[in-house]
């Protein structure tokens, strides 16, 4: 089992800026979790430590039986894949397909294995129809899917998506949901950072809230989105349907459209 554990982890950037201050978290193997929280809270810094791009200044990042201290970034990234917040930091090939192919090819897999992984990754992200395109001729939202495909093709046990919902339309969000679901069903551990409260409410079992270099709270979406103290600390808001129901007297639990419809109908009946 490859549980991912952060033990008393802190991180300071060169120059001394403390970005993550003594945090602890455990993400169980196969879990599908979201990390949310205010700008500058330390989310990106935290996940970059999970895949070895950054090394904790103090504390331990443990993935299954690996303490990342004892492994190179290349070794860690074979277990934990990371999709950058800014796709342009990640893309450096001139076609979508070669971008996605690069990782598996470097891993010295058989040709068939490379082919089948690339095909799968392009298909699940909807990028197969752009495989000959230069990624820079695609809109930013699609470039994000190119980087997601590149990480999926690595077939790591843990996948981290940094703000995949940014700039996505209705269809893009749907596709992301499906990708998360499928990876989860395959037993992958998936960690997603997002500022989209509706998306978080409907796609995750557990939500980790960060603010000011620390973890504020963790819980189910139902718990987190009715914890007003935590929401305020992390500059978050309830999903819209929760806000409306709250204004009309609901006092917990509601975070989805279906629940809101049910609640409103029950209020109407009572008053009929």
């Amino acid at each position, binding site marked *: 089992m490859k549980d991912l554990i952060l033990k008393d982890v802190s991180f300071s*950037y060169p*120059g001394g*800026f403390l970005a993550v201050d003594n945090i602890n978290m455990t993400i169980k193997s196969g879990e599908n979790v979201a990390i949310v*929280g*205010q*700008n*500058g809270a330390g*989310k*990106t810094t935290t996940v970059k430590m999970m895949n070895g791009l950054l090394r904790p200044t103090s504390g331990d990042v443990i993935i299954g039986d690996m303490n990342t201290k004892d492994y190179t970034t290349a070794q860690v990234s074979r277990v934990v894949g990371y999709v950058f*917040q*800014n796709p*342009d*930091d990640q893309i450096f090939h001139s076609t979508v397909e070669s971008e996605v192919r690069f990782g598996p090819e470097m891993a010295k897999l058989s040709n068939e294995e490379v082919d089948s992984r690339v095909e799968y990754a392009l298909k699940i992200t909807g990028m197969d129809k752009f495989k000959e395109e230069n990624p820079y*001729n*695609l*809109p*930013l*939202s*699609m470039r994000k899917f190119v980087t997601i495909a590149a990480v999926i093709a690595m077939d790591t046990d843990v996948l981290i998506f940094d*703000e995949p919902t*940014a*700039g*996505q*339309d*209705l*269809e*893009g969000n749907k596709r992301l949901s499906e990708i998360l679901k499928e990876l989860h069903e395959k037993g992958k551990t998936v960690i997603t950072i997002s*500022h989209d*409260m*509706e998306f978080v409410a409907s796609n995750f079992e557990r939500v980790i809230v960060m603010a000011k270099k620390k973890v504020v709270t963790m819980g189910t979406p139902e718990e987190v989105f009715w914890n007003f103290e935590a929401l305020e600390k*992390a*500059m*978050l*808001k309830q*999903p*819209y*349907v929760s*806000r*409306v129901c709250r*204004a*009309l007297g609901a006092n917990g639990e509601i975070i989805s*459209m279906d629940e*809101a*419809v049910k609640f*409103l*109908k029950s*209020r*109407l009946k009572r*008053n009929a």
Partner: protein
Amino acid sequence: MDCVIELKNVTYSYPLTTVPAIKDLSVKIEKGKFYGVIGENGSGKTTFCALLRGFAPSFYKGDLSGEVLVEGRSTLEYGPGELASKIGFVFQNPFTQISGVKDTVFEEVAYGLENFGVPVDEIEKRVVEVMKLTDIESLAEKNPFDLSGGQMQRVALASVLVIEPEILVIDEPTSQLDPEGTESVFKIISKLKEKKKTVILVEHKIDLIAEYADEVLVFKDGSLVAAGDKQEILSDMSLLEKGVALPQVAILGNTLKEEGVPLKYIPVTEKQAEEVFSELITGKE
């Protein structure tokens, strides 16, 4: 109507492409209004912005037919600096906006004003003000590249707001922002109306467009498929066929209506939703 920008039968293709990114687009932009530009990914929103600012075709090259008129003059006739002082432009990717020539956030935000030759005292005053407004005061001494995604996006916006241009073209300025930050950016932008600024804002966050924009422009496949009154456009389920989500409260309203609940109208904002639903619950008119 006082028209600041007009597109007349504009068709535009990027170099080496066969399908135009914008197809036969005609639209008038009225001075002092806040336009919300919406549409699915790849529908041409960013290209539309690039046309307004003259980047298409001057930077991107490609083929343009028809006319893009800014205050009555074709963008092709403007000198490069001229359009820059008239139209503030915030790029979709904040990482693109950072100049790369300044070492601190403070200097970065001041950079545009410096280029326009504004006196130093005034630069300082304006930079301090805008940094406060966009909540980046604490980042003043940081290197612009040593920021989180959301912080960088705030800096990108601040560096354009500080110039106080007459027209602002802003491409998804909240994509990396936390919910509070997003709301506050919308508040800042809608306040620009008090100064008679014209704002063209691209956004996927439809709930906020519903709340703050005056009018909406809906793009699909490079064409304008709906334009005008936000209440009408955003409350109608047919928006989904254009690949655009409805505001959450409008979905809620439509769902209840389908189930036979007699709503006075379909709300598009939170406030409207509370009003419409609470009337039903308390039974008062």
